[in-house]
């Protein structure tokens, strides 16, 4: 048979023309680009550790993990427990809001909603995720707090409850969309198997789909927690800067992030203990979220149900 177009020869010629060095250089370029984030991470960790080291030369670890925090007094003390307390309480409130609402939304979107409702709700959730946190902070301070004051008259103008709730609203899209992805990826064969045994839709969702997707769902919770722990603007605006150690969520409290914001905006002179305390707090915050991410990875491995 005679070929009218000689593709073979043309390919042979083009292969000869190809520049071999491009094939060698480009992967190296990609490697350098990929290293940028790794190097940055290492840089940040090194900075945090060295400057935190300066801090711990002057303040013992026992004083650091104490409840007395008054960095600007004549005889300053740097007990971090009020900050940890504020961080954990605000994150806890956020999770109490985000987990039930996020998970039930995910269940609805993945298993119950019609395509039309889903196409309506999903973009709105994504808009929620795109709102800048400063807007959320303002929303917490100027709208949610006054609203809550009507319910709880003793609520302080700056308190942990309001930013906690608003942070929860902020991370709903994260929980909902990651959990929904996890549930959506459960194969239909499992649903069919359950229907075939006379399950109702609710039973299929709660007894088969949810357990099968649990690793992804748990991972979404943990990622959401670490997002709440690291959240800054909302708490800085709405929860104030009280450094008292208290469990009363109607009071003002400062979080670790809030502390860093307050002191980087001018009060701490470079080289002072107060200045170095920022790095100690920053390091601790880093360890917190780092542990959270490790837990998330562990969970998604441990609970992975292969289907």
């Amino acid at each position, binding site marked *: 048979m005679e070929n009218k177009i000689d593709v073979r020869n043309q390919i042979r010629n083009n292969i000869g023309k190809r520049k071999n060095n491009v094939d060698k250089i480009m992967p190296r370029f990609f490697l350098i680009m990929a290293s940028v984030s790794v190097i940055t991470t290492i840089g940040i960790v090194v900075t945090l550790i060295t400057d935190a080291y300066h801090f711990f030369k002057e303040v013992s670890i026992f004083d650091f993990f104490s409840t007395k925090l008054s960095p600007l007094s004549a005889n300053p003390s740097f007990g971090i427990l009020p900050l940890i307390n504020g961080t954990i309480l605000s994150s806890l409130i956020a999770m109490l809001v985000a987990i039930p609402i996020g998970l039930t939304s995910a269940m609805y979107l993945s298993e119950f909603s019609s395509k039309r409702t889903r196409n309506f709700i999903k973009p709105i959730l994504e808009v929620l995720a795109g709102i800048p946190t400063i807007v959320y902070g303002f929303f917490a301070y100027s709208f949610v707090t006054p609203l809550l004051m009507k319910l709880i008259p003793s609520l302080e103008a700056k308190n942990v409850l309001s930013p906690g709730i608003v942070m929860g609203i902020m991370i709903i899209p994260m929980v909902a969309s990651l959990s929904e992805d996890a549930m959506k990826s459960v194969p239909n064969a499992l649903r069919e*198997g*359950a229907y*075939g045994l006379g399950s109702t839709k609710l039973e299929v969702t709660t007894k088969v789909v949810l357990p099968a997707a649990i690793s992804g769902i748990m991972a979404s919770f943990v990622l959401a927690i670490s997002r709440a722990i690291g959240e800054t603007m909302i708490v800085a605006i709405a929860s104030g800067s009280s450094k008292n150690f208290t469990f009363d969520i109607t009071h003002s409290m400062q979080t670790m992030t809030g502390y860093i914001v307050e002191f980087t905006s001018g009060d701490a002179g470079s080289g002072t203990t107060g200045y170095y305390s920022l790095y100690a707090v920053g390091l601790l915050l880093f360890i917190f979220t780092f542990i959270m991410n490790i837990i998330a990875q562990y969970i998604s491995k441990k609970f992975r149900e292969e*289907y």
Partner: protein
Amino acid sequence: MTNYENKIVYDVKGLNLWYGNDQALKDINIKINKNEVTAIIGPSGCGKSTFIKTLNRMIENIPGVRTTGEIMYHGINIFDKTMRVEELRTRVGMVFQKPNPFPKSIYENVLYGPKIHGVKDKQMLQEILETSLKSAALWDEVKDRLHDNAYGLSGGQQQRLCIARALAVQPDVILMDEPTSALDPIATAKIEELIDSLKSDYSISIVTHSMQQAGRISDKTAFFLMGELVEFGNTEMIFSNPRDKRTEDYITGRFG
């Protein structure tokens, strides 16, 4: 009330089914008997899977499906408002093309059905577990690892587990949609043996692509073509002396 002693389990009368505007089943009339294996054969897209999924109304999970006609199950039309689809599906078990155990333990898989339907008594559950696994010829292989994940089983074992899972709610019909298509010949032989032994207690409808399989295991054979039931009768008759030319062509391998 329903009389489960009837010889006729299913009496399908004038069944039509549409996916949107495409008619997938055309005026199907068929009677399915107790304690018999009914093989449903036909080329891909002939409606045989659609038909079997209509028998327990699983087909309704597909959006845009519309049916007319009647499917009398022990004298009750399964499309009746009074028929609860969940109850129907506990009476009519289903085994799917690919083994689909839940990502849970063997124990949880078998007892899923009884548990969601409110069986709580521990001893009763234990008995159900044992009888179901024994009936599915799986007990000896798994009795020492009941709490292991079902995904550790081989494909053939998983399929038998799915059969045990269906048996655990004590159905009287088992629908099988090409249950051996994902299995090797040895696992297939085991399932076929199992089907034969289950016949005395259940009526079984099985969709199969394999003519040999239909010949080996079934009492009756239904041949579907383009949504129509072309021929239905004793398997021996269908294979040795088909009345319809199209059946003969399909069985002798002239098409399909």
